[in-house]
């Protein structure tokens, strides 16, 4: 039942929001909706309500497709992430006001429904459905409320991902006709036995779709522009949650469906990912716009995750699992800070900022913590993930680990550069005007900080949660 | 060479020649008249093939009605040779070539079956007689027969709507 609620609540809530014309009410309403979702999710987690984690209903019998939702470890984790992030997003962007707020918040909630659906879908066609559904609201959000280059940029992003997903659809169709009982259900798709040659081209059809979404070098060029142009609230959704769609899709669909191809091409994928890590880190050092910097650093982190997914050993996979969550939380924190800075000082250019530490110590401290989590300092959540992932990568091939490890240094360089340029040094005319953050913003950041440390010190629960997924994947590789 | 063969060849020559003249002649009126010649030749063929009914209908409907209609229109617009300026030469040549190659392709496709050479066409038989045709027309083909009235209706309505002066 929870599974269904997680989709229905935001969906219906979102549709209702369109009719809540008054801004403050729209905000309040959408915030409440997101809280309800969170509550549903947390209850399920606390109750260990296994039964509630799957749901099946008749949908398109003639297509052998049913409305089947199912939470395994990874998806539970990600659903929790989604339902956790939304209230934070809403509360942290409480101050910023948008033209026609009702449609803005409505679309946000619809996006949540779509994303959650992707994490839950246990039916190929349904998965594709949600995959697109998550995209449409985001498209409108970015193009309507974004920066001045928004239309072109968002459009590029849309078509880029759309091509990818259509290719995936073709692959899905082909798989469908290979199934014994002509069904899209995950089980029967898993059961399909494919020849190596079939696997190898199907693998690429799927991989491109996911690679664009993640994004993996060299499919990443849409990402910095989109992050830069879209309103920060949407950027949070994009990079904290939508990015995970690609990775999760790899976990739930790509690897179990085409294990042989995954092994066959692991060097290409991991190679691309590792190149991406270094490449993006180097680019991050060049950026002046904080948003672009975070965008590139996020590409680097994703690169590590996508590499870890293909190393085919438990350490790497577990690391990737926990990092799915950690990266979401950390990057969300980053965006919140940026949002706060931009709202206060009206710019994201590091060259124009500086000396914020005097005006906004609270903000500074929180940013430093998040940034340190971003560079995977021990006792922060990211460290656990990166340690395990690098270990997995090392097991796979020493040199990948060594080269990829350079990104650890580079990330330190650009993160500290950002901290210094924005917060240290003397304040200038622009930054002299600022004020520190209020308690709401503090609270929403505090949640993140707490999450960072709790998971960094005691990750055990997450591991227990995701073990089943990991064993599943390792199982298919046997 | 029997009389029919002579006739056949003569009609063929007449049809093709007429067709070519129709296409090439400058003056529309001449083209119409040449086309009439072609129709007569074809009717001749029908007779040779013992399809008298069609031969007659062909004369009446085509040569008689349709062509006269054409003539009227041409007269009405009092067109004559010179008021058709030269068309772009290349397009002309291209058109001729295209038509020719279409012909070639057909022939090439068809001549590869030798056995067709032997396949004779029966000059006799009463399939073409009005009695037989009439019977089938009003039994098996009653639906198309009736439905073609709709066709005529729409054509009529159209002609009126389009041709009606004033509005």
């Amino acid at each position: 039942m929870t599974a269904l609620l997680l989709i229905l609540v935001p969906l219906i809530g979102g549709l209702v929001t369109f009719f809540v014309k008054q801004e403050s009410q729209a905000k309040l309403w959408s915030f409440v909706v997101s809280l309800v979702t969170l509550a549903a999710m947390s209850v399920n987690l606390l109750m260990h309500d296994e039964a509630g984690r799957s749901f099946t209903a008749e949908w398109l019998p003639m297509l052998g497709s049913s409305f089947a939702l199912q939470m395994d470890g990874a998806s539970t984790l990600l659903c929790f992430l989604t339902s956790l992030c939304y209230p934070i997003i809403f509360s942290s962007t409480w101050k910023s006001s948008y033209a026609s707020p009702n449609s803005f918040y409505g679309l946000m909630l619809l996006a949540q429904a779509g994303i959650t659906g992707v994490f839950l879908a246990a039916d190929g066609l349904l998965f594709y459905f949600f995959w697109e559904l998550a995209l449409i609201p985001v498209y409108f959000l970015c193009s309507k409320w974004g920066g001045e280059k928004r239309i072109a940029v968002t459009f590029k992003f849309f078509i880029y991902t759309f091509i990818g997903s259509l290719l995936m659809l073709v692959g899905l169709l082909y798989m469908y006709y290979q199934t014994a009982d002509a069904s899209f259900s995950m089980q029967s798709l898993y059961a399909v036995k494919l020849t190596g040659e079939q696997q190898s081209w199907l693998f690429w059809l799927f991989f491109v779709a996911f690679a664009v979404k993640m994004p993996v070098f060299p499919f990443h060029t849409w990402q910095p522009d989109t992050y830069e142009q879209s309103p920060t609230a949407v950027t949070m959704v994009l990079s904290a949650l939508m990015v995970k769609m690609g990775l999760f899709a790899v976990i739930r669909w790509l690897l179990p469906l085409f294990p042989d191809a995954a092994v066959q091409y692991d060097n290409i994928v991991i190679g691309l990912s590792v190149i991406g890590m270094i490449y993006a880190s180097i680019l991050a050092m060049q950026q002046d716009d904080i948003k672009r910097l975070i965008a590139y650093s996020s590409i680097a982190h994703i690169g590590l995750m996508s590499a870890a997914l293909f190393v085919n050993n438990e350490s790497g996979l577990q690391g990737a699992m926990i990092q799915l969550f950690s990266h979401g939380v950390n990057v969300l924190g980053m965006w919140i800070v940026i949002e706060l800075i931009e709202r206060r000082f009206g710019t994201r250019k590091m060259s124009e900022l500086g000396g914020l530490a005097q005006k906004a110590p609270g903000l500074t401290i929180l940013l430093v913590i998040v940034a340190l989590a971003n560079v995977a300092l021990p006792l922060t959540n990211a460290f656990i993930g990166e340690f395990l992932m690098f270990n997995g990568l090392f097991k796979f091939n020493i040199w990948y680990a060594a080269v990829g490890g350079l990104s650890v240094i580079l990330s330190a360089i650009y993160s500290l550069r950002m901290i210094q340029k924005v917060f240290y040094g003397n304040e200038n005319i622009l930054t002299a005007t600022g004020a520190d953050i209020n308690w709401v913003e503090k609270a929403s950041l505090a949640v993140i900080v707490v999450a960072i440390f709790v998971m960094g010190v005691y990750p055990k629960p997450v591991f227990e949660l995701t073990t089943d997924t990991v064993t599943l994947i390792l199982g298919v590789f046997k | 060479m029997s009389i029919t063969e002579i006739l056949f060849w003569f009609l063929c020559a007449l049809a093709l020649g007429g067709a070519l003249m129709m296409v090439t002649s400058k003056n529309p009126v001449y083209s119409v008249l040449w086309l009439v010649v072609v129709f007569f030749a074809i009717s001749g063929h029908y007779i040779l093939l013992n399809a008298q009914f069609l031969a007659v209908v062909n004369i009446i409907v085509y040569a008689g009605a349709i062509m006269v209609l054409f003539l009227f229109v041409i007269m009405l617009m009092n067109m004559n040779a010179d008021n058709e300026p030269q068309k772009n030469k290349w397009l002309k040549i291209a058109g001729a070539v295209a038509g020719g190659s279409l012909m070639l392709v057909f022939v090439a496709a068809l001549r590869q079956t030798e056995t067709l050479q032997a396949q004779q066409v029966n000059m006799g038989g009463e399939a073409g007689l009005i009695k037989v045709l009439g019977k089938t027309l009003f039994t098996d083909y009653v639906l198309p027969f009736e439905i073609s009235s709709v066709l005529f209706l729409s054509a009529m309505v159209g002609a009126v709507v389009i041709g009606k002066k004033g509005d």
Partner: protein
Amino acid sequence: MNLILISAIWGIVMMFSGLFLKSKSSAKTVALIGSIALLIGNFFDLSGKMIINSNFNGMLQYERFGLLFLTVLVLALIMYILLSGKDVEAVGNHPFEYFALIFFVMSGAGLVALFNNLLILFIGIEIISIPLYILTGSDKRNLKGNEAALKYFLMGSFSTGIMLMGIAFLYGATGSFQLEQLMLQPQEDYKIFMLIGIVMIMVALAFKVSAAPFHFWTPDVYDGAPTVFTSFMATIVKAAVFIGFVNLFANAFGNKTGNWQMTVAIITTLTLFIGNITAVYQQSVKRMLAYSSIAQAGFMMFAVFAINDMAKQGLLLYAAAYCFATIGIFAVLVKMKDYTFDGFNGLAKKQPLVALVLTVCLLSLAGIPLTAGFFAKYFVLAAAVKTGTYLWLVIFAVVMAAVSVYYYFRVIQAMYFKEGEGQEMLITVPFKALLVTVAAVVILLGVYPSLLLNWLTLF
């Protein structure tokens, strides 16, 4: 059969009511009644209760598929009359005659949907075409209209010639016009006739559905014709011809798949490519829709390409999705002065509801999930994948679908994201209601296509 009769008769009724009813505005009402009569008649067709229950010595065959397809067409027609009836009256001085012609076209569509004999196909196509020539030119003062009419007519009758040549060769091969006869293997010497015949008839039908490289008439005619009739041509007529296309290839050449599939594949590829790519650069929305209709035809060609039940269901769904969406868009377009993309700037502020409906329709045409368009494309592509061959064709198609997103979304961007004050247009409340219905249908079919497809197996 009922449908054919009723539509023929109602055509005449329309003509005569033109004599007695002086007020132009009553034409719409009469037509509406007629179309509802059609629906009822078709319903009885489906349930096997016919005025004349005969297949006329195998001239017709009452396949569920064909009949259901006609239902879709009739529903589309009703929606069309409801949305654009007023505009039809506005075109010229002969509203009743226009509607009469439309009804004649419907009877032709009936023939094409149910034919079992090439003669019926031929006559059906002609009955569809001739009224269209006239409707195209119905706005007599408009030179563009005249030009379009003449172009359409000349090329149309040319294609008729091609089709007849094809039919003649098919007859030469088998000695019959009955589809089941054509199904039989011709004797060795005549195989070549069969081949030539198939190609030529394919070309002729490709022309009618405006598939490349026989599509050239489409943009000019759709652009030149009065917009209401463009809407009619682009939707109902095109769908009608397609059902004929599929019926012919399913019931006459279905067993000979392979040697003509390649040809269809080529035509499909060309159509998708030219239709989508050319649409990208258009400045006028009307002309863009003309090209998009070519592109959509490319997708429907998949149904012809993969002759199987999936394909038939797909075509059915596609026709419904495509017709409703396009009719909706045109209905709005007719009301606008400025057909360029910039004409749509800022429409969302001026007419939020209209803009929303347009968006839904455009999304459907682009084949985005949750709209009927997605399942339409899904089915036809699935049918093609099912054949297991020509996967490159499917991949090419999806890439082209992505291209199509480009020009459909240009309109959405103009409406929602571009600055500008949307242009004046008179939108009545009932009209809005109808638009909403269209959108609702599109979305309903998009979420639960079985609604429509279950009818194939019902009764």
